[in-house]
């Protein structure tokens, strides 16, 4: 199976994930969280990964940064970044790779900031560790970073709890671009925020991306947001990619029934009210096959005409 290279940016992929498989090794049995997932992201491209909770999208993000914790283990496949094998990096190489090459914005800014250190200290940490700047120089640059995301540099002395949710997430974004990484992973960066703030954060990220030219791996369950922001996107279900194409193509012409259900889950804000259905409760897809190309750059996991792929279970929420 190949992903055809319809990258938005250059043809040289920044990130190339091939057949990635991640397993959770349990006491008695193991579950596969991600199964043979492949995709690549070109320079300056925004690649979206959509799917619902538990579909494995965050696991992929953590695999790329190699942040998986027990009992999750990468059981197969490869991740290469700018031609380097991420999975073969030594601890020291890995430490340098993190944040300098790939930075990440986590879902909840409240939880991803250390509550007992000031924002300033947490930014300075990055500079002193990676760039070897003096404390004073680091502080100066930290101030500049905050200005970049339109936060008053005086806020360097604030603790996370003293900032509003939106400000905290902007501070995290400032941290993420501190070392000008070539890839930024956004793991549901706005789910905890209100729409108005969400809109501003996304605008901020777009602006920074235009300015600094990094690539983005954008993870969300909000299809509308994803279609608005991404160049290309993939839809995940049960640890597999079920469909991948240009975002506008997915929006205009979703092929897989699951993608259609996701699209149908967001009623439009304009036009007439039409009945939508979404996916019935307890419906599950099983044994999703590998992707096949249905149109140039549009790959879909095959499903039978009579859709036998769906069966009903009532225990799917048990492992939330």
């Amino acid at each position: 199976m190949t992903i055809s290279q319809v990258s938005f940016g250059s043809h040289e992929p920044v990130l190339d994930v091939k057949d990635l498989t991640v397993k959770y090794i349990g006491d008695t049995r193991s579950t596969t969280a991600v199964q043979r997932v492949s995709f690549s992201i070109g320079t300056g491209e925004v690649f979206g990964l959509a799917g619902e909770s538990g579909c494995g999208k965050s696991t992929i993000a953590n695999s790329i940064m190699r942040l998986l914790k027990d009992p999750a283990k990468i059981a197969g496949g490869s991740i290469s970044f700018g031609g380097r094998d991420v999975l073969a990096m030594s601890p020291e190489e890995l430490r340098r790779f993190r944040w300098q090459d790939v930075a990440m914005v986590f879902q909840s800014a409240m939880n991803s900031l250390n509550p007992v250190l000031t924002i300033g200290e947490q930014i300075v940490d990055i500079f002193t560790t990676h760039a070897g700047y003096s404390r004073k120089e680091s502080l100066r640059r930290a101030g500049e970073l905050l200005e970049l995301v339109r936060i008053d540099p005086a806020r360097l002395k604030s603790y996370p709890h003293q900032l509003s949710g939106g400000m905290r997430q902007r501070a995290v974004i400032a941290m993420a671009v501190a070392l000008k990484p070539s890839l930024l992973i956004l793991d549901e960066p706005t789910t905890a925020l209100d729409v108005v703030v969400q809109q501003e954060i996304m605008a901020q990220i777009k602006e920074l991306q235009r300015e600094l030219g990094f690539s983005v791996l954008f993870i969300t369950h909000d299809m509308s947001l994803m279609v608005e922001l991404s160049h290309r996107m993939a839809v995940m279900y049960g640890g597999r990619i079920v469909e991948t194409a240009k975002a506008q193509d997915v929006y205009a012409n979703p092929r897989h029934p699951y993608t259609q259900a996701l699209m149908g889950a967001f009623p439009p804000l304009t036009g007439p009210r039409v009945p939508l259905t979404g996916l019935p409760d307890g419906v599950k897809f099983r044994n999703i096959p590998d992707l096949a190309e249905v149109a140039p750059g549009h790959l879909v996991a095959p499903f039978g005409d009579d859709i036998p792929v769906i069966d009903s279970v009532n225990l799917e929420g048990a492992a939330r």
Partner: protein
Amino acid sequence: MSHSLMTPSAVAGTGTPALEIRGLGKSFPVGGLFSRDSVRALHGVDLAIGSGEIVALVGESGSGKSTLARCIARLEKPSSGEILIDGVDVLKRDRFQASRAFRSQVQMVFQDPFGSLNPAHRIEHFLRRSLAIHGKGGGSEEATRRRLEELMTTVGLEADMLNSYPHELSGGQRQRVAIARALAVEPQVILADEPTSMLDVSVRIGVLNLMRKLRDEQGISMLYITHDLASARYLADRTAVMFAGEPVEEGESLDLLANPAHPYTQLLVSAVPDPARAGSYDPVRRAELRQAVMASTRCAFDGDPNQPCSAEEPVRHHVGDPASRHWVRCHLYRPWAAAGAHALASEPTNPSHPASNAQEEAPA
């Protein structure tokens, strides 16, 4: 699918509303036992829900919409105001604790289906208790059993799930159980506090459709609380917008979201991602709106003596066709400008306004 999507509730609008709220206010004390400070969460809320009508209450977190629901459900004690069910003020009727009579009239569905079902009990327990408390079991064990199975079928679940524990069900299924539990007491009004926000996106619509079906088939009135404008538009006949503890705009859902009159509503509408409107984002326009509204803790013009808002309470203006029930409460609204693009454009905000350089301020 025979949903009456195109007919926004013919039943609504006449007779005594099923639920009416007048001047409801709620303040929370802050600080310790001896502190007299308080935070105003709700202020002078008026709202009416006709029988068989679905009204959506939209707003961001902190706008007071959940507090309102909890006050109506009498999980919180309102500081002032009246709650009328069929024209009777229930706050006066049972003053200290909500009576069972009240509980059988108003039910609530909570946001988190993983938190609203006690993990220690089987599904049957929840429904059986609701039936037993309010004497809706039908007298005999057989009748109760039949009623239980009927309830499960109504919400689209298999009857044999009655034996399951909540952790064996998916989020969507649990929320259906929560709805069945509310239905069991045969209430007049169901308050649904963000019933879909914790569910997987693909099953959200299913729960909304179920709510609509219950309204259509059983004539239950609903207050649908959400931050999701699109789902409010999809489900509700009317929509009210909450801002800083007060409803600031209300109207037929389609009309309101197509022609938002209050700057806050405009801001909300413009912030919703909608691929169909891709590219409609206008930073200048947004900055203007943002400047006008700011963080949702208070109106930007509150406290500015030059603004009429601070000097006097804003009054309601009708928006558009006088026959419509669309109103807005904002001094900036100019009825004569309604014919134009949007009301705010005719009144450019002053750049030196004190709020203009205040980003969202941190909570103190």
